[in-house]
């Protein structure tokens, strides 16, 4: 295809070989094109044809005047004169040759500027002053680095205008106008007024004239300055204390688009990254204001034109008598107009009548029932009083209602005229009186003849404010013979009468003055009203003491109230009073601000806290390593998050599968003897783990694999199995499983020990020997070592870990004890054992070997070779047992061991090769 048929986009990448062609082109251009182009379009290229970068100062590919040494004017230098005809005169250089125009102007003093002398607003003066200050600043070091803030520099001189004005009697802050203009203006206005008044009399002219006048007036009012002295000052230009120096326009707000930078918002000194937002965490909890941004926002204050001096001026003006030539008027025009309350016409009938209360009021005429002592039963008393108060407030209706409701209730017998009826009557009456009083106050003119247009008198006011009326001058509404208890404090809802507390209730008995203050305090607290000036204590008390005392009072009052509220029996009240007294004593003596209550709480707290709890915690193996400690769990995986059966907490997760099944079965067999149990457990094992048993066979080959067995066993497989186990778990009711597991554990322990004993041919192995014997067997086989192999020992240790969670199992039966002993010795040995990592390696090794053995055994064992099986089982069991016991002595998890054995096999089997199936099957058959 021809190149011309194609369309090219973009710039092709240049190749080396293309350079030559470009070169040619460049040559061609140089010869032809360059000549045709004007100078300023020509480009400088090197011999390779590339543009040459030059003229860097002017920023690009051209230098000089369009790549020439010429200039706009042309090539010829202007200054050339022929020295032949016209000798060039010697040029006299002066400084002026080198200055710009404005500099020249400056230098020659030709510039026009206000001099300091005629600086009306002080701008120049302040400028000069600032310059001066800057200069000084440069000379001497100062605490504030950098240029002097403008605010600190004040104009040094009064402007000439100000000086002149001052000489003419003007003062700062006044408007500039002479009083004569003012008076002149006033006179004119008066005249105009008169003229208007005059002209209005004859109507003919008034229209025209009036109009004219109106216009005139209007325009006058516009131009007319405010007359008042204080206002006039507002028109004085602001003294140029802070001349505007920046170039910001009016209303300029530097934070307009960055409101987060507005003063105060920023944290101390810093914001956070531009891309981050302020969170709650970024709040400055310490509330420091030290690093606020300088507030440069132009505050638009309404009366910004008001000079600072104005304030003072006004103050002086306000003070009477200070103004020279004036005095305070003796007769004032200003009078407070008083309005009397509207009188309600005599024939006024209030339309809204409320049945209840008004009816009650009608009864005022009814003579008060006799004062009856309250019934003995304090509960009754309280009930009666409560009902009475309610009825008094809500009207007879309520009484009827409650009577109906409580007809069968004996405690409401007083309503039906039964026990306590008289007392109820009395209380009801009192309550009604009280309520009426309250009603009357807000409605002084409710038509009652006795208190028509009653003016507020001292008593009423006192009642409103909650003052206690003096003894005998009590309100006339209550007949003098009635001693109304409730009247004393009735304007407020608190029915408690602190003023008449028994002697007991005086918590500050020992200090009469204090007690008095306390009473006062109580009164104020519960009755409201105005606090007396010295409310918090004696006048000679310090603030702190007063506060302290106030606290005491509050507490005492609280306690008192509590006591009163629960004043069922006098006795308890008495007690609480006593209690309070003691507390009060404490306050006064020690000045501790805690009441007995809080002290009690504190004490309780102390008893409660600190509380100590202990939990299991698994440090991760790496953490242990980094801390240079032996991992207490030896790198085993943590137990699953939820604790199921105790067996589950065995290291091997793989064991989860059979658990529920076994658990279920053994749960039913709980009551059997240990022998029976053993058999049953055995049966269970066989039944539940058929496949697993089969898989044991498989392992023979696996052993050969150079796999990290440890890891394989503990992590990989267990993961898989754990999953499956979980699934199966879900189906099972958890609780049942747990119970079953617990029993299973117990059984297994016994079972295991027994079987162990059998296998060893011992009744109850009393000591280490049996153990070492079992151990020795494999070790002798494998390594031909005599006696106890230390490595074996370590391996024992290692396998031994059983998580702690197991330890809450039932205590081991007797046989397990010697296992413990064994374990202990093992641990002793452990102390001298090589570091864990090595250990582990060895262990792994030996284990593998052993397993090999055992597995090979298991072939035959299934066929009934006792000795072989013995070895196998004893080995594994012994190991495990020791392990578990070393972990924690309580555990009797032998049960687990047996199970674990097949677990291990199962875990191993999970890695089995498929082609092993055959042998497996074969084996199963054999077993069956």
């Amino acid at each position: 295809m021809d190149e011309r048929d194609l369309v090219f986009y973009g710039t092709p990448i240049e190749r080396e070989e293309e350079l030559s062609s470009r070169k040619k082109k460049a040559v061609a251009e140089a010869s032809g094109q360059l000549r045709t182009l004007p100078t300023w379009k020509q480009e400088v290229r090197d011999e390779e044809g590339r543009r040459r970068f030059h003229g860097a100062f002017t920023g690009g590919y051209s230098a000089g005047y369009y790549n020439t040494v010429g200039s706009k004017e042309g090539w010829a230098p202007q200054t050339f004169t022929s020295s032949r005809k016209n000798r060039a005169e010697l040029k006299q250089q002066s400084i002026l040759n080198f200055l710009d125009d404005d500099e020249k102007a400056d230098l020659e003093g030709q510039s026009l500027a206000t001099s300091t002398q005629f600086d009306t607003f002080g701008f120049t003066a302040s400028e000069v002053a600032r310059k001066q200050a800057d200069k000084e600043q440069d000379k001497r070091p100062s605490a504030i680095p950098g240029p002097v803030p403008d605010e600190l520099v004040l104009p040094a001189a009064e402007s000439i205008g100000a000086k002149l004005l001052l000489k003419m009697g003007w003062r700062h802050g006044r408007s500039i106008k002479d009083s004569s203009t003012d008076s002149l203006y006033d006179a004119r206005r008066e005249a105009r007024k008169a003229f208007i008044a005059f002209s209005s009399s004859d109507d003919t002219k008034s229209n025209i004239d009036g109009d004219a006048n109106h216009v005139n007036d209007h325009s006058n009012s516009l131009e007319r300055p405010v007359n008042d002295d204080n206002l006039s000052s507002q028109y004085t230009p602001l003294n140029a204390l802070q001349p505007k120096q920046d170039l910001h326009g009016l209303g300029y707000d530097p934070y307009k688009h960055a409101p987060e930078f507005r003063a105060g918002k920023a944290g101390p000194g810093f914001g956070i990254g531009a891309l981050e937002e302020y969170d709650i965490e970024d709040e400055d909890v310490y509330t420091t204001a030290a690093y606020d941004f300088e507030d440069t926002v132009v505050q638009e204050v309404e009366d910004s034109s008001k000079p600072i001096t104005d304030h003072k001026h006004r103050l002086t003006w306000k003070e009477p008598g200070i103004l020279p030539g004036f005095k305070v008027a003796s007769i004032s025009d200003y009078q407070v107009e008083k309005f009397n309350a509207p009188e309600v016409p005599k024939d006024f009938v209030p339309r809204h009548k409320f049945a209840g209360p008004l009816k009650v009021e009608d009864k005022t005429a009814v003579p008060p029932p006799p004062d009856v002592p309250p019934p003995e039963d304090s509960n009754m008393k309280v009930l009666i009083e409560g009902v009475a108060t309610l009825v008094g407030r809500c009207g007879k209706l309520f009484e009827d209602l409650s009577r109906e409701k409580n007809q069968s209730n004996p405690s409401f017998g007083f309503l039906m005229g039964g026990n306590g009826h008289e007392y109820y009557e009395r209380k009801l009456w009192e309550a009604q009186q009280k309520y009426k009083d309250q009603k009357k106050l807000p409605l002084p003119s409710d038509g009652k003849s006795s208190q028509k247009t009653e003016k507020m008198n001292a008593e009423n006011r006192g009642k409103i404010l909650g003052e206690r009326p003096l003894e005998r001058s009590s309100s006339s509404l209550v007949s003098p013979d009635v001693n109304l208890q409730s009247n004393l404090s009735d304007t407020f809802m608190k029915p408690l009468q602190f003023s008449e507390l028994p002697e007991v209730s005086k918590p500050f008995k020992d200090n009469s003055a204090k007690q008095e203050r306390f009473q006062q305090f109580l009164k104020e607290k519960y009755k409201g009203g105005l606090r007396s000036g010295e409310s918090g204590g004696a006048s000679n008390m310090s603030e702190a003491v007063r506060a302290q005392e106030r606290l005491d009072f509050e507490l005492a009052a609280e306690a008192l109230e509590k006591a009163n509220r629960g004043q069922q029996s006098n006795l308890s009240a008495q007690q609480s009073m006593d209690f309070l007294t003691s507390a009060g004593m404490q306050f006064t003596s020690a000045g501790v601000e805690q009441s007995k209550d809080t002290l009690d709480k504190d004490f309780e707290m102390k008893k409660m806290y600190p509380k100590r709890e202990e939990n299991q915690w698994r440090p991760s193996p790496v953490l242990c390593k980094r801390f240079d400690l032996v991992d207490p769990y030896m790198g085993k995986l943590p137990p699953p998050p939820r604790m199921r059966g105790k067996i589950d907490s065995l290291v091997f997760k793989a064991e989860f599968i059979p658990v529920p099944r076994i658990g279920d079965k053994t749960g039913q067999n709980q009551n059997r003897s240990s022998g029976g149990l053993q058999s049953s457990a055995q049966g269970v094992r066989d039944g539940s783990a058929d496949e697993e048993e089969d898989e044991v066979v498989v392992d023979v080959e696996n052993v050969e694999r150079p796999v990290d067995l440890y890891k394989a066993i503990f992590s990989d497989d267990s993961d898989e199995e754990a999953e499956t186990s979980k699934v199966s778990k879900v189906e099972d009711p958890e609780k049942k499983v747990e119970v079953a597991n617990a029993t299973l554990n117990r059984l297994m322990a016994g079972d295991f020990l027994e079987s162990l004993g059998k296998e060893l041919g011992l009744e109850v192995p009393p000591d280490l020997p049996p153990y070492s014997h079992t151990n020795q067997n494999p070790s002798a086989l494998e390594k031909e070592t005599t006696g106890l192999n230390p490595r074996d020992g370590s391996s024992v240790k290692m396998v031994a870990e059983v998580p702690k969670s197991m330890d809450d199992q039932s205590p081991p039966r007797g046989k397990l004890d010697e296992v413990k002993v064994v374990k202990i010795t093992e641990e002793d040995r452990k102390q001298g054992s090589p570091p864990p990592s090595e250990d582990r390696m060895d262990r792994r090794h030996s284990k593998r070997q052993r397993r090999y053995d055992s597995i090979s055994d298991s072939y035959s064992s299934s066929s009934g070779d006792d000795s072989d099986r013995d070895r196998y089982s004893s080995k594994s069991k012994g190991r495990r047992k020791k392990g578990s016991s070393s972990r924690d002595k309580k555990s009797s998890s032998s049960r687990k061991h047996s199970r674990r054995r097949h677990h291990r096999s199962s875990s191993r089997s999970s890695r089995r090769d498929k082609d092993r199936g055959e042998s497996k099957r074969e084996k199963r058959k054999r077993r069956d």
Partner: protein
Amino acid sequence: MSASDLPTKEANVLKGHEGAVLAARFNADGNYCLSCGKDRTIRLWNPHRGIHIKTYKSHGREVRDVHVTPDNSKLVSCGGDRQVFYWDVSTGRVIRKFRGHESEVNAVKFNEYASVAVSAGYDQSLRSWDCRSHSTEPIQIIDTFSDSVMSVCLTKTEIIAGSVDGTVRTFDIRVGREISDNLGQPVNCISLSNDGNCILASCLDSTLRLLDRTTGELLQEYKGHTCRSFKMDCCLTNTDAHVTGGSEDGYVYFWDLVDATVVSRFRAHASVVTSVSYHPKDSCMVTASVDGTIRVWKT
């Protein structure tokens, strides 16, 4: 040591932090001190000469705690940016950043071998970070706390942390056991006694509590200062004879360890005293405050 030997005279003022200083810590031998603050920097000082040595900048938000290895080669710091920074002291470069905390990190400490840093976070967890490997994943997360973990202390075998849930929890690595001492009050800061037998816990009810570590018993309570809303440090003096702590009003208090009387109190700062650190050997103390200064106190 008598009360007169307490460091109450101002020896130096270390200025440089802009904004609140959140922690000041002596290094292991007491020759240097480190501070960190709201200005997102960590500063290294010679408090005895009053010299600012170096500034470590990399944190994106305020730095709340800093700790230096016993050999002075590495730093670990944490703060509001939810990361734990592992620094090289001499070059001032961040070697590693440990991310994982879901919220601000309140405190961080090295273990004895400087192989692990344990950080305590607002996300109610303790996380331990491996300084030896290149992994930036936490070695272990302890999340048994039910509120923000404020402070952490490490011994050779234990991790001790105090939390706002009112507990001081000791995680014994050697035994694999967690001991939780519930104080009933939010714990602000914990500090080990020099003999390692006691924990001093600063609670938000303005009380310092001294706990016996083996029994969990409350040995003593120290009151008088104000500590109600800020995280403030407390510590024991080098001789374990006195307990010291800051107050929200800028005072520093000294209590007698045994009878809990206020032995000395003086106004150290204009604002909340966020941190106190006592010299490991001498009678010398540094205090840091919200007012932006660190002050060195000597007898």
